[in-house]
C-alpha cells in the first residue's frame, strides 16, 4: 500500500508514503521498494526503498501446517515454535477453513469442524545457540470422515505478550493413513 501526492508545484515538497504490511512478513532483514513514475526530466522512474530488520517474537516452523492421518487414523503434526520467551505456554490451537461452502454438505462439514484441536507442548532442555527456545508443539485431531483436503488457517493462542495469536496457513490432508 502506498499513499502519494499526485502533483507538486515547482519549488514545493510532496510526500510518498509506502506502507509495509508486517503481519505476514518473515523474520530477518529485508527491503521493500516502490517505483515512482512521473513527468520528471531527470528521473522519470525513481526507486524508493525501505529497509528493516524484523525480529519475530514467536515463529512456527514449518510455516505451513499439514495435519495428516497417522497409522491409527488420527490427524496429527508436529510444529517447532521458536521464541525468545523461556516460559511459553499455548492456550489454544484451532483451525478455520478459508473455503467458501458451495453446497450443503460442505457447509455441514465446516460447521462440524472442531474449534479446538488437541495439543501438547514440550519445552526444550536448553535454548539454542542464538538464545531462542525451540518448543515442540504436537497437534492432533480424532479420526473423522474427510473426503477432500481442507485449506485454512491455524491459530495458536499463546501467553506471549507480543504475539498472543500466531496464525499459520495450512491444510487438513484427506490422504488415507499410511499402511502399518
Amino acid at each position, binding site marked *: *500500500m*502506498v499513499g*502519494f*501526492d*499526485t*502533483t*507538486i*508545484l*515547482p*519549488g*514545493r*515538497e*510532496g*510526500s*510518498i*508514503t*509506502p*506502507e*509495509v*504490511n*508486517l*503481519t505476514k*512478513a518473515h*523474520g530477518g532483514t529485508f*527491503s*521493500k*521498494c*516502490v*517505483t*515512482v*513514475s*512521473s*513527468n*520528471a*526530466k*531527470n*528521473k522519470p522512474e*525513481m*526507486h*524508493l*526503498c*525501505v*529497509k*528493516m*530488520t*524484523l*525480529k*519475530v*517474537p*514467536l515463529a512456527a516452523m514449518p510455516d505451513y501446517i499439514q495435519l495428516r492421518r497417522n497409522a491409527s487414523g488420527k490427524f496429527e503434526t508436529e510444529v517447532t515454535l521458536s521464541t525468545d520467551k523461556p516460559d511459553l505456554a499455548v492456550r489454544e490451537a484451532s483451525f478455520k477453513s478459508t473455503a467458501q461452502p458451495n453446497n450443503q454438505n460442505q457447509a455441514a462439514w465446516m460447521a462440524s469442524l472442531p474449534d479446538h484441536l488437541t495439543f501438547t507442548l514440550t519445552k526444550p532442555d536448553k535454548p539454542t545457540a542464538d538464545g531462542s527456545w525451540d518448543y515442540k508443539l504436537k497437534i492432533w485431531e480424532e479420526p473423522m470422515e474427510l473426503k477432500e483436503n481442507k485449506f485454512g488457517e491455524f491459530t495458536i493462542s499463546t501467553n*506471549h505478550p*507480543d*504475539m498472543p495469536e500466531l496464525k499459520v496457513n495450512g491444510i487438513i490432508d484427506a490422504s488415507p493413513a499410511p499402511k502399518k
Partner: protein
Amino acid sequence: MKKTLKSLFLMAMLLVIPAACKTGPLISVDSEEVNLGTIKQGTKTAAKYVFKVKNTGDSVLVIRDVRPG
C-alpha cells in the same frame, strides 16, 4: 528579403531562449533508501515511512503512479 530573414531569426530566438532556460519538472529526494532499523513483530501491523519529494524544476511535477517493485 534580408529584413524578413532578420525578423524570422528574432522570432526564432524568442522561442528558443525561454525554452533553453526551462528545466521542466525535476524530482529530488534526500535519500532513496532508508533503514528503519529493527522492528519487533507483533508490536505493529505495518511499517510506514514518509519520503519527502521535492520538485526542484520550474514546472509542475506530476506523479502518475507509484507501484511496488
